[in-house]
Protein backbone atom coordinates (compact mmCIF):
# COMPACT_ATOMS: atom_id res chain seq x y z
CA UNK A 1 0.00 0.00 0.00
CA UNK A 2 1.47 3.28 -1.13
CA UNK A 3 2.10 6.03 1.38
CA UNK A 4 0.02 9.13 0.95
CA UNK A 5 1.89 12.24 1.90
CA UNK A 6 -0.38 14.83 3.49
CA UNK A 7 1.17 18.21 2.85
CA UNK A 8 0.61 21.23 0.69
CA UNK A 9 2.55 19.86 -2.21
CA UNK A 10 0.62 16.57 -2.45
CA UNK A 11 -2.89 17.43 -1.33
CA UNK A 12 -5.58 19.76 -2.54
CA UNK A 13 -8.16 19.91 0.25
CA UNK A 14 -11.83 20.14 -0.78
CA UNK A 15 -14.04 23.16 -0.17
CA UNK A 16 -14.96 26.44 -1.80
CA UNK A 17 -13.97 29.55 0.16
CA UNK A 18 -16.07 32.68 -0.21
CA UNK A 19 -15.44 36.32 0.56
CA UNK A 20 -17.91 38.14 2.79
CA UNK A 21 -19.28 39.94 -0.27
CA UNK A 22 -19.69 36.72 -2.24
CA UNK A 23 -21.42 35.02 0.66
CA UNK A 24 -24.06 37.67 1.13
CA UNK A 25 -24.66 37.94 -2.62
CA UNK A 26 -25.38 34.23 -3.04
CA UNK A 27 -28.83 33.67 -4.51
CA UNK A 28 -31.30 32.07 -2.14
CA UNK A 29 -29.43 32.87 1.06
CA UNK A 30 -31.95 32.39 3.84
CA UNK A 31 -32.22 34.90 6.66
CA UNK A 32 -33.54 33.32 9.83
CA UNK A 33 -33.70 34.59 13.39
CA UNK A 34 -34.31 31.84 15.91
CA UNK A 35 -37.13 32.65 18.33
CA UNK A 36 -35.82 30.81 21.36
CA UNK A 37 -37.17 32.20 24.63
CA UNK A 38 -36.94 30.75 28.11
CA UNK A 39 -38.03 31.41 31.70
CA UNK A 40 -35.30 29.88 33.81
CA UNK A 41 -36.30 28.81 37.27
CA UNK A 42 -33.41 29.82 39.50
CA UNK A 43 -33.94 27.04 42.03
CA UNK A 44 -33.45 26.98 45.77
CA UNK A 45 -29.85 28.08 46.00
CA UNK A 46 -29.79 30.93 43.50
CA UNK A 47 -33.22 32.35 44.35
CA UNK A 48 -32.07 32.86 47.94
CA UNK A 49 -28.76 34.30 46.68
CA UNK A 50 -30.61 36.83 44.52
CA UNK A 51 -33.01 37.75 47.36
CA UNK A 52 -30.08 38.40 49.64
CA UNK A 53 -28.37 40.55 47.01
CA UNK A 54 -31.45 42.74 47.11
CA UNK A 55 -30.86 43.09 50.86
CA UNK A 56 -27.23 43.95 50.24
CA UNK A 57 -25.77 40.67 51.47
CA UNK A 58 -23.81 37.90 49.78
CA UNK A 59 -25.14 34.49 50.75
CA UNK A 60 -23.15 31.29 50.50
CA UNK A 61 -23.64 27.65 51.40
CA UNK A 62 -21.23 25.71 53.54
CA UNK A 63 -20.55 21.99 53.40
CA UNK A 64 -19.80 20.81 56.93
CA UNK A 65 -18.39 17.57 55.55
CA UNK A 66 -15.38 19.15 53.80
CA UNK A 67 -15.67 22.72 55.05
CA UNK A 68 -15.94 24.26 51.57
CA UNK A 69 -17.93 27.47 51.23
CA UNK A 70 -19.79 28.02 47.97
CA UNK A 71 -20.46 31.43 46.47
CA UNK A 72 -22.55 31.42 44.33
CA UNK A 73 -24.36 28.97 46.60
CA UNK A 74 -25.10 25.37 45.65
CA UNK A 75 -27.57 23.10 47.44
CA UNK A 76 -25.13 20.21 47.11
CA UNK A 77 -21.39 19.93 47.59
CA UNK A 78 -19.93 19.02 44.22
CA UNK A 79 -16.89 17.37 45.82
CA UNK A 80 -18.55 15.38 48.64
CA UNK A 81 -21.80 14.89 46.74
CA UNK A 82 -23.89 15.58 49.81
CA UNK A 83 -26.44 18.32 50.38
CA UNK A 84 -24.67 21.43 51.69
CA UNK A 85 -25.29 22.13 55.38
CA UNK A 86 -25.97 25.78 56.15
CA UNK A 87 -26.31 29.32 54.88
CA UNK A 88 -23.56 31.74 55.70
CA UNK A 89 -23.31 35.44 54.90
CA UNK A 90 -20.17 37.13 53.64
CA UNK A 91 -19.07 40.73 53.95
CA UNK A 92 -18.17 40.74 50.30
CA UNK A 93 -14.59 41.88 50.89
CA UNK A 94 -11.99 39.90 49.03
CA UNK A 95 -8.82 39.67 46.99
CA UNK A 96 -8.46 40.16 43.23
CA UNK A 97 -7.32 36.95 41.58
CA UNK A 98 -7.13 38.20 38.02
CA UNK A 99 -8.35 41.15 35.97
CA UNK A 100 -8.44 42.26 32.34
CA UNK A 101 -9.35 45.27 30.20
CA UNK A 102 -12.10 44.67 27.65
CA UNK A 103 -12.17 46.85 24.55
CA UNK A 104 -15.05 44.90 22.98
CA UNK A 105 -18.66 44.07 23.84
CA UNK A 106 -20.75 40.90 23.67
CA UNK A 107 -20.90 40.76 19.88
CA UNK A 108 -17.28 41.86 19.44
CA UNK A 109 -18.23 45.52 18.84
CA UNK A 110 -15.60 48.08 19.96
CA UNK A 111 -16.54 49.76 23.23
CA UNK A 112 -16.28 53.52 23.57
CA UNK A 113 -14.94 53.17 27.07
CA UNK A 114 -13.01 50.02 27.97
CA UNK A 115 -14.25 47.97 30.92
CA UNK A 116 -12.25 46.31 33.68
CA UNK A 117 -13.42 42.80 34.50
CA UNK A 118 -12.06 40.45 37.11
CA UNK A 119 -12.48 37.66 39.60
CA UNK A 120 -12.69 38.28 43.34
CA UNK A 121 -11.84 35.60 45.87
CA UNK A 122 -14.18 36.35 48.77
CA UNK A 123 -13.06 36.43 52.41
CA UNK A 124 -14.46 33.98 54.92
CA UNK A 125 -14.36 35.41 58.46
CA UNK A 126 -12.22 38.27 57.12
CA UNK A 127 -9.58 35.82 55.89
CA UNK A 128 -8.52 34.90 52.37
CA UNK A 129 -9.35 31.22 51.77
CA UNK A 130 -6.57 28.95 50.49
CA UNK A 131 -6.63 26.15 47.92
CA UNK A 132 -7.54 25.49 44.28
CA UNK A 133 -11.29 26.03 44.88
CA UNK A 134 -12.67 29.14 46.58
CA UNK A 135 -15.86 31.19 46.96
CA UNK A 136 -15.76 34.01 44.47
CA UNK A 137 -17.50 36.17 41.95
CA UNK A 138 -16.78 37.36 38.48
CA UNK A 139 -17.70 41.03 38.06
CA UNK A 140 -16.83 44.51 36.85
CA UNK A 141 -14.33 46.68 38.72
CA UNK A 142 -14.57 50.44 39.38
CA UNK A 143 -11.81 52.87 40.34
CA UNK A 144 -9.26 50.62 38.71
CA UNK A 145 -7.15 51.94 35.83
CA UNK A 146 -6.03 50.13 32.71
CA UNK A 147 -2.48 50.51 34.00
CA UNK A 148 -3.35 48.84 37.31
CA UNK A 149 -4.35 45.79 35.27
CA UNK A 150 -1.41 45.83 32.88
CA UNK A 151 1.25 46.33 35.54
CA UNK A 152 -0.37 43.69 37.72
CA UNK A 153 -0.89 46.15 40.59
CA UNK A 154 -4.52 45.14 40.86
CA UNK A 155 -3.80 41.43 41.32
CA UNK A 156 -3.79 40.65 45.02
CA UNK A 157 -5.46 44.00 45.83
CA UNK A 158 -8.22 44.11 48.44
CA UNK A 159 -11.69 45.03 47.14
CA UNK A 160 -15.29 45.31 48.30
CA UNK A 161 -18.63 45.43 46.51
CA UNK A 162 -20.20 48.76 45.60
CA UNK A 163 -23.93 48.21 46.03
CA UNK A 164 -26.65 49.96 44.10
CA UNK A 165 -29.06 52.06 46.10
CA UNK A 166 -31.54 49.83 47.89
CA UNK A 167 -34.52 51.05 45.87
CA UNK A 168 -32.68 50.31 42.60
CA UNK A 169 -31.85 46.72 43.47
CA UNK A 170 -33.93 44.08 41.78
CA UNK A 171 -32.55 40.75 42.96
CA UNK A 172 -30.01 40.36 40.21
CA UNK A 173 -26.23 40.04 40.06
CA UNK A 174 -26.08 43.66 38.88
CA UNK A 175 -27.37 44.79 42.31
CA UNK A 176 -23.66 44.87 42.92
CA UNK A 177 -22.60 47.68 40.63
CA UNK A 178 -18.97 46.63 40.72
CA UNK A 179 -16.12 45.77 43.06
CA UNK A 180 -13.79 48.62 44.08
CA UNK A 181 -10.46 48.79 45.88
CA UNK A 182 -10.52 49.31 49.65
CA UNK A 183 -8.59 52.51 50.37
CA UNK A 184 -5.28 52.20 52.19
Amino acid at each position, binding site marked *: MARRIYDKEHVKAPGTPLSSKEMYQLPGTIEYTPVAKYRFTTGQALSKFLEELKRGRIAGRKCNNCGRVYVPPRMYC*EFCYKPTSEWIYLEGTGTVVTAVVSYIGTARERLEKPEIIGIVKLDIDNKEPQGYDFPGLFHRFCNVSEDDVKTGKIIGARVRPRWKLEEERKGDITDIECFEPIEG
Partner: protein
Amino acid sequence: MTSSRVGIISIGWYGFSPSTPEVSFREMMFESSNRAYSAVGIDPRKEVDAFVVCQEDYWEGIAITNEFAPEPLGGVLRPTVTIAGDGLQCIVTAYQLIKTGYFDIVAVEAHSKASNIATLSKIYEIALDPHYVRPLYAKNPLFLAGLEARAYMERTGAEKYHLALVAVKNKNNGLNNPRASYATPLDLEDVVESKPVIDPLTSYEIAPFVDVSITFLLAGEESARKFTDTPIWIEGVGWSTETGTGAIAWHEWGRMRFLRDAANQAYRIAGISNPARSFDFAEVEDRFSYAELVALEELKLAQEGTAHILLESGDFDIDGYLPVNPSGGSLSIGVALEATGLVRILEATLRLWSMELVEEAEGRAVVASWRGIPSFSGGVVVLSL
Protein backbone atom coordinates in the same frame (compact mmCIF):
# COMPACT_ATOMS: atom_id res chain seq x y z
CA MET B 1 -14.54 -6.17 24.78
CA THR B 2 -15.79 -8.23 27.68
CA SER B 3 -18.31 -11.04 27.77
CA SER B 4 -19.68 -9.64 31.04
CA ARG B 5 -23.39 -8.86 31.02
CA VAL B 6 -24.54 -5.32 31.69
CA GLY B 7 -27.25 -4.68 34.24
CA ILE B 8 -29.39 -1.82 35.47
CA ILE B 9 -28.80 -1.71 39.22
CA SER B 10 -30.58 1.44 40.32
CA ILE B 11 -32.87 4.24 39.16
CA GLY B 12 -33.68 7.61 40.69
CA TRP B 13 -36.17 10.17 39.46
CA TYR B 14 -37.58 13.57 40.31
CA GLY B 15 -40.53 15.39 38.79
CA PHE B 16 -42.97 13.78 36.39
CA SER B 17 -45.08 16.89 36.56
CA PRO B 18 -46.07 19.49 33.98
CA SER B 19 -43.91 22.10 35.72
CA THR B 20 -41.30 22.14 38.50
CA PRO B 21 -40.94 25.77 39.58
CA GLU B 22 -39.47 24.76 42.94
CA VAL B 23 -36.14 23.60 41.52
CA SER B 24 -33.62 24.55 38.87
CA PHE B 25 -32.70 21.93 36.28
CA ARG B 26 -29.45 21.38 38.15
CA GLU B 27 -31.20 20.75 41.46
CA MET B 28 -33.54 18.36 39.70
CA MET B 29 -30.53 16.46 38.31
CA PHE B 30 -29.06 16.27 41.81
CA GLU B 31 -32.31 14.94 43.28
CA SER B 32 -32.70 12.11 40.78
CA SER B 33 -29.02 11.20 40.90
CA ASN B 34 -28.75 11.27 44.67
CA ARG B 35 -31.74 8.90 44.88
CA ALA B 36 -30.21 6.49 42.38
CA TYR B 37 -26.87 6.37 44.20
CA SER B 38 -28.24 6.11 47.72
CA ALA B 39 -30.68 3.33 46.80
CA VAL B 40 -27.71 1.01 46.34
CA GLY B 41 -25.22 2.77 48.59
CA ILE B 42 -22.86 3.88 45.82
CA ASP B 43 -20.59 6.89 46.26
CA PRO B 44 -20.44 8.58 42.86
CA ARG B 45 -17.25 10.39 43.80
CA LYS B 46 -15.39 7.10 44.10
CA GLU B 47 -17.33 4.24 42.60
CA VAL B 48 -18.82 5.55 39.36
CA ASP B 49 -16.37 5.32 36.45
CA ALA B 50 -18.19 7.51 33.93
CA PHE B 51 -21.21 9.77 33.67
CA VAL B 52 -23.28 9.99 30.48
CA VAL B 53 -25.87 12.73 29.98
CA CYS B 54 -28.36 13.06 27.13
CA GLN B 55 -29.28 16.68 26.45
CA GLU B 56 -29.46 19.25 23.68
CA ASP B 57 -28.67 22.97 23.72
CA TYR B 58 -31.89 24.49 22.44
CA TRP B 59 -34.02 22.48 24.86
CA GLU B 60 -31.95 23.90 27.71
CA GLY B 61 -31.58 27.44 26.42
CA ILE B 62 -27.86 27.22 26.97
CA ALA B 63 -25.22 26.93 24.28
CA ILE B 64 -22.89 24.11 25.39
CA THR B 65 -25.23 22.84 28.08
CA ASN B 66 -22.66 20.14 28.86
CA GLU B 67 -21.05 22.78 31.11
CA PHE B 68 -23.66 22.11 33.76
CA ALA B 69 -23.49 18.31 33.69
CA PRO B 70 -20.74 17.33 36.15
CA GLU B 71 -21.69 19.03 39.43
CA PRO B 72 -25.22 17.74 40.01
CA LEU B 73 -24.21 14.18 39.04
CA GLY B 74 -21.13 13.90 41.21
CA GLY B 75 -19.04 13.85 38.04
CA VAL B 76 -16.65 16.72 38.80
CA LEU B 77 -13.11 15.87 37.65
CA ARG B 78 -14.31 12.53 36.37
CA PRO B 79 -15.22 11.32 32.87
CA THR B 80 -18.52 13.05 32.06
CA VAL B 81 -19.86 13.30 28.53
CA THR B 82 -22.93 14.68 26.80
CA ILE B 83 -24.58 12.65 24.10
CA ALA B 84 -26.83 14.85 21.97
CA GLY B 85 -29.52 12.23 21.64
CA ASP B 86 -32.50 10.53 23.22
CA GLY B 87 -31.93 9.01 26.67
CA LEU B 88 -32.03 5.51 25.25
CA GLN B 89 -28.87 6.36 23.36
CA CYS B 90 -27.19 7.21 26.67
CA ILE B 91 -28.09 3.74 27.94
CA VAL B 92 -26.47 2.36 24.77
CA THR B 93 -23.36 4.47 25.43
CA ALA B 94 -23.11 3.23 29.03
CA TYR B 95 -23.57 -0.32 27.76
CA GLN B 96 -20.71 0.19 25.29
CA LEU B 97 -18.44 1.69 27.95
CA ILE B 98 -18.97 -1.28 30.25
CA LYS B 99 -18.55 -3.71 27.34
CA THR B 100 -15.07 -2.32 26.64
CA GLY B 101 -14.06 -3.90 29.94
CA TYR B 102 -12.46 -0.67 31.04
CA PHE B 103 -15.48 0.85 32.80
CA ASP B 104 -17.42 -0.97 35.47
CA ILE B 105 -20.12 1.31 36.89
CA VAL B 106 -21.62 4.05 34.71
CA ALA B 107 -24.29 6.63 35.56
CA VAL B 108 -26.76 7.86 32.94
CA GLU B 109 -28.87 10.98 33.32
CA ALA B 110 -31.36 12.86 31.17
CA HIS B 111 -33.88 15.48 32.07
CA SER B 112 -36.59 17.68 30.71
CA LYS B 113 -37.28 21.17 31.92
CA ALA B 114 -39.78 21.79 29.14
CA SER B 115 -41.63 24.23 31.39
CA ASN B 116 -38.63 26.58 31.09
CA ILE B 117 -39.18 26.95 27.35
CA ALA B 118 -41.45 29.84 26.39
CA THR B 119 -41.40 29.18 22.62
CA LEU B 120 -41.45 25.41 22.35
CA SER B 121 -43.02 25.30 18.90
CA LYS B 122 -40.36 27.69 17.60
CA ILE B 123 -37.64 25.46 19.01
CA TYR B 124 -39.02 22.62 16.89
CA GLU B 125 -38.94 24.97 13.92
CA ILE B 126 -35.19 25.55 14.43
CA ALA B 127 -34.71 21.80 14.04
CA LEU B 128 -36.24 21.84 10.56
CA ASP B 129 -34.02 21.95 7.52
CA PRO B 130 -33.13 25.64 7.04
CA HIS B 131 -33.12 25.57 3.25
CA TYR B 132 -36.13 23.55 2.19
CA VAL B 133 -38.56 23.14 5.08
CA ARG B 134 -38.25 26.21 7.29
CA PRO B 135 -39.08 28.68 4.51
CA LEU B 136 -42.52 27.03 4.29
CA TYR B 137 -43.26 28.77 7.61
CA ALA B 138 -45.56 26.00 8.75
CA LYS B 139 -47.69 27.22 11.67
CA ASN B 140 -47.01 24.02 13.53
CA PRO B 141 -43.67 22.27 12.90
CA LEU B 142 -45.25 19.01 14.06
CA PHE B 143 -47.12 18.90 10.73
CA LEU B 144 -44.59 16.27 9.73
CA ALA B 145 -46.32 13.87 12.16
CA GLY B 146 -49.57 14.37 10.27
CA LEU B 147 -47.84 13.41 7.02
CA GLU B 148 -46.46 10.30 8.68
CA ALA B 149 -49.85 9.33 10.08
CA ARG B 150 -51.55 9.73 6.68
CA ALA B 151 -48.85 7.72 4.91
CA TYR B 152 -49.19 4.97 7.50
CA MET B 153 -52.99 4.86 7.12
CA GLU B 154 -52.71 4.80 3.35
CA ARG B 155 -50.31 1.87 3.46
CA THR B 156 -52.13 -0.30 5.97
CA GLY B 157 -55.77 0.64 5.64
CA ALA B 158 -55.88 1.74 9.27
CA GLU B 159 -58.57 4.32 9.94
CA LYS B 160 -58.72 7.33 12.19
CA TYR B 161 -60.47 5.41 14.95
CA HIS B 162 -57.61 2.93 15.08
CA LEU B 163 -55.26 5.77 15.90
CA ALA B 164 -57.77 7.00 18.46
CA LEU B 165 -57.78 3.56 20.07
CA VAL B 166 -54.08 3.95 20.89
CA ALA B 167 -54.88 7.11 22.84
CA VAL B 168 -57.82 5.45 24.59
CA LYS B 169 -55.68 2.50 25.63
CA ASN B 170 -52.71 4.52 26.83
CA LYS B 171 -54.59 7.31 28.57
CA ASN B 172 -56.53 4.67 30.56
CA ASN B 173 -53.44 2.55 31.25
CA GLY B 174 -51.82 5.56 32.87
CA LEU B 175 -54.54 5.80 35.51
CA ASN B 176 -52.69 3.15 37.53
CA ASN B 177 -49.33 4.91 37.19
CA PRO B 178 -48.50 7.61 39.76
CA ARG B 179 -46.03 9.15 37.30
CA ALA B 180 -48.64 9.66 34.56
CA SER B 181 -49.71 13.30 34.86
CA TYR B 182 -51.81 13.22 31.71
CA ALA B 183 -53.71 9.96 32.27
CA THR B 184 -57.46 10.24 32.09
CA PRO B 185 -60.49 7.97 31.67
CA LEU B 186 -61.19 8.23 27.97
CA ASP B 187 -63.46 6.49 25.52
CA LEU B 188 -63.33 6.23 21.78
CA GLU B 189 -66.07 8.80 21.25
CA ASP B 190 -64.18 11.46 23.19
CA VAL B 191 -61.35 11.15 20.71
CA VAL B 192 -63.11 10.68 17.39
CA GLU B 193 -65.51 13.52 18.10
CA SER B 194 -62.79 16.05 18.86
CA LYS B 195 -61.32 18.20 16.09
CA PRO B 196 -57.93 17.29 14.70
CA VAL B 197 -55.02 19.51 15.73
CA ILE B 198 -52.75 18.21 13.00
CA ASP B 199 -54.87 16.24 10.58
CA PRO B 200 -55.57 13.37 11.28
CA LEU B 201 -54.34 13.68 14.89
CA THR B 202 -56.46 15.10 17.71
CA SER B 203 -55.06 16.65 20.86
CA TYR B 204 -55.57 13.31 22.68
CA GLU B 205 -53.19 11.70 20.22
CA ILE B 206 -50.32 14.14 20.65
CA ALA B 207 -48.37 13.74 23.87
CA PRO B 208 -47.90 16.91 25.96
CA PHE B 209 -44.63 17.78 27.71
CA VAL B 210 -43.46 16.92 31.19
CA ASP B 211 -40.62 17.95 33.53
CA VAL B 212 -38.51 15.16 34.93
CA SER B 213 -34.97 14.11 35.71
CA ILE B 214 -34.01 10.44 35.66
CA THR B 215 -30.74 8.81 36.65
CA PHE B 216 -29.78 5.21 35.96
CA LEU B 217 -26.87 3.21 37.26
CA LEU B 218 -25.50 0.46 35.05
CA ALA B 219 -22.84 -2.05 36.02
CA GLY B 220 -20.92 -5.03 34.73
CA GLU B 221 -22.19 -8.41 35.90
CA GLU B 222 -19.96 -8.89 38.92
CA SER B 223 -20.60 -5.45 40.38
CA ALA B 224 -24.27 -5.60 39.47
CA ARG B 225 -24.69 -8.70 41.60
CA LYS B 226 -22.73 -7.11 44.41
CA PHE B 227 -25.05 -4.12 44.63
CA THR B 228 -28.42 -5.73 44.04
CA ASP B 229 -30.15 -9.11 44.02
CA THR B 230 -32.27 -8.12 41.06
CA PRO B 231 -30.34 -6.41 38.32
CA ILE B 232 -32.31 -5.88 35.15
CA TRP B 233 -30.06 -7.19 32.41
CA ILE B 234 -29.63 -5.34 29.17
CA GLU B 235 -29.67 -8.26 26.77
CA GLY B 236 -29.44 -6.32 23.58
CA VAL B 237 -29.13 -2.77 22.27
CA GLY B 238 -29.63 -1.22 18.87
CA TRP B 239 -29.67 2.30 17.56
CA SER B 240 -29.95 3.73 14.08
CA THR B 241 -30.50 6.80 11.97
CA GLU B 242 -32.38 6.49 8.70
CA THR B 243 -31.09 9.77 7.29
CA GLY B 244 -30.56 13.44 8.11
CA THR B 245 -33.27 15.98 8.85
CA GLY B 246 -32.28 17.83 5.70
CA ALA B 247 -32.88 14.74 3.55
CA ILE B 248 -36.61 14.21 4.03
CA ALA B 249 -36.88 13.24 0.39
CA TRP B 250 -35.04 10.02 1.27
CA HIS B 251 -37.26 9.18 4.20
CA GLU B 252 -39.73 6.39 3.77
CA TRP B 253 -42.97 7.98 4.99
CA GLY B 254 -45.29 6.15 7.32
CA ARG B 255 -42.47 3.94 8.54
CA MET B 256 -39.68 4.05 11.08
CA ARG B 257 -36.92 2.21 9.29
CA PHE B 258 -34.47 3.26 11.98
CA LEU B 259 -36.48 1.29 14.55
CA ARG B 260 -36.45 -1.76 12.27
CA ASP B 261 -32.65 -1.53 11.95
CA ALA B 262 -32.22 -0.90 15.68
CA ALA B 263 -34.51 -3.81 16.56
CA ASN B 264 -32.63 -6.18 14.26
CA GLN B 265 -29.38 -5.22 15.96
CA ALA B 266 -30.81 -5.55 19.48
CA TYR B 267 -32.49 -8.89 18.72
CA ARG B 268 -29.29 -10.23 17.19
CA ILE B 269 -27.29 -9.34 20.29
CA ALA B 270 -30.02 -10.72 22.58
CA GLY B 271 -30.42 -13.87 20.48
CA ILE B 272 -34.12 -13.33 19.84
CA SER B 273 -35.48 -14.99 16.72
CA ASN B 274 -39.22 -14.69 17.29
CA PRO B 275 -39.84 -11.27 18.77
CA ALA B 276 -43.64 -11.52 18.74
CA ARG B 277 -43.43 -14.39 21.23
CA SER B 278 -40.47 -13.29 23.31
CA PHE B 279 -41.71 -10.51 25.56
CA ASP B 280 -44.07 -10.05 28.50
CA PHE B 281 -44.77 -6.50 27.43
CA ALA B 282 -43.45 -3.64 25.31
CA GLU B 283 -42.86 0.02 26.07
CA VAL B 284 -42.66 1.70 22.68
CA GLU B 285 -42.77 5.09 21.04
CA ASP B 286 -46.19 6.78 21.31
CA ARG B 287 -45.62 10.51 21.32
CA PHE B 288 -48.16 10.46 18.50
CA SER B 289 -50.85 7.77 18.40
CA TYR B 290 -49.86 6.43 14.96
CA ALA B 291 -46.24 6.04 16.10
CA GLU B 292 -47.11 3.18 18.44
CA LEU B 293 -48.66 1.18 15.58
CA VAL B 294 -45.73 1.88 13.25
CA ALA B 295 -43.26 0.98 15.99
CA LEU B 296 -44.97 -2.35 16.72
CA GLU B 297 -44.59 -3.37 13.09
CA GLU B 298 -40.99 -2.19 12.82
CA LEU B 299 -40.17 -4.13 16.00
CA LYS B 300 -41.76 -7.21 14.40
CA LEU B 301 -44.23 -7.45 17.26
CA ALA B 302 -46.99 -7.32 14.66
CA GLN B 303 -46.82 -8.41 11.07
CA GLU B 304 -46.68 -5.80 8.35
CA GLY B 305 -50.01 -3.97 8.15
CA THR B 306 -51.67 -5.77 11.07
CA ALA B 307 -50.88 -3.68 14.15
CA HIS B 308 -54.14 -1.76 14.00
CA ILE B 309 -56.15 -4.99 13.67
CA LEU B 310 -54.42 -6.58 16.64
CA LEU B 311 -54.93 -3.39 18.60
CA GLU B 312 -58.64 -3.39 17.88
CA SER B 313 -58.94 -7.01 18.97
CA GLY B 314 -57.41 -6.13 22.33
CA ASP B 315 -54.09 -7.93 21.90
CA PHE B 316 -52.13 -4.91 23.15
CA ASP B 317 -54.37 -4.15 26.12
CA ILE B 318 -52.93 -4.37 29.60
CA ASP B 319 -54.49 -7.84 29.96
CA GLY B 320 -53.96 -8.76 26.30
CA TYR B 321 -51.53 -11.07 24.55
CA LEU B 322 -48.74 -8.48 24.53
CA PRO B 323 -49.42 -5.44 26.72
CA VAL B 324 -48.09 -2.36 24.93
CA ASN B 325 -47.31 0.73 26.98
CA PRO B 326 -48.90 -0.61 30.15
CA SER B 327 -47.37 2.44 31.87
CA GLY B 328 -49.59 4.71 29.81
CA GLY B 329 -46.72 5.68 27.53
CA SER B 330 -45.88 9.22 26.51
CA LEU B 331 -49.56 9.95 25.88
CA SER B 332 -50.17 9.55 29.63
CA ILE B 333 -46.79 10.49 31.08
CA GLY B 334 -45.74 13.18 28.64
CA VAL B 335 -42.79 13.76 26.36
CA ALA B 336 -39.72 14.40 28.49
CA LEU B 337 -37.56 15.85 25.68
CA GLU B 338 -34.31 13.82 25.62
CA ALA B 339 -35.35 11.93 28.78
CA THR B 340 -38.24 10.28 26.92
CA GLY B 341 -36.29 7.10 26.22
CA LEU B 342 -35.26 6.91 29.86
CA VAL B 343 -38.90 7.24 30.94
CA ARG B 344 -39.73 4.17 28.86
CA ILE B 345 -36.80 2.16 30.24
CA LEU B 346 -37.68 3.27 33.78
CA GLU B 347 -41.27 2.09 33.37
CA ALA B 348 -40.13 -1.19 31.84
CA THR B 349 -37.59 -1.76 34.62
CA LEU B 350 -40.08 -1.09 37.41
CA ARG B 351 -42.59 -3.40 35.76
CA LEU B 352 -40.02 -6.17 35.37
CA TRP B 353 -39.11 -5.80 39.03
CA SER B 354 -42.79 -6.15 39.92
CA MET B 355 -42.91 -9.42 37.96
CA GLU B 356 -40.14 -11.04 39.96
CA LEU B 357 -42.48 -13.44 41.72
CA VAL B 358 -44.81 -14.07 38.77
CA GLU B 359 -44.00 -17.59 37.72
CA GLU B 360 -45.48 -17.67 34.25
CA ALA B 361 -43.64 -14.50 33.24
CA GLU B 362 -40.69 -14.66 30.84
CA GLY B 363 -39.36 -11.63 32.64
CA ARG B 364 -38.38 -9.99 29.40
CA ALA B 365 -39.43 -6.72 27.77
CA VAL B 366 -38.59 -4.63 24.76
CA VAL B 367 -38.30 -0.85 24.76
CA ALA B 368 -38.21 1.39 21.70
CA SER B 369 -37.79 5.13 21.51
CA TRP B 370 -37.69 7.66 18.68
CA ARG B 371 -36.04 11.05 19.04
CA GLY B 372 -39.17 12.79 17.77
CA ILE B 373 -39.89 15.30 15.02
CA PRO B 374 -38.05 15.96 12.80
CA SER B 375 -35.44 13.27 13.46
CA PHE B 376 -35.19 9.86 11.86
CA SER B 377 -33.26 8.35 14.76
CA GLY B 378 -34.23 5.84 17.39
CA GLY B 379 -33.15 2.94 19.52
CA VAL B 380 -34.24 -0.35 20.98
CA VAL B 381 -33.21 -2.22 24.12
CA VAL B 382 -34.14 -5.68 25.32
CA LEU B 383 -34.37 -6.01 29.11
CA SER B 384 -34.71 -9.07 31.31
CA LEU B 385 -35.00 -9.99 34.96
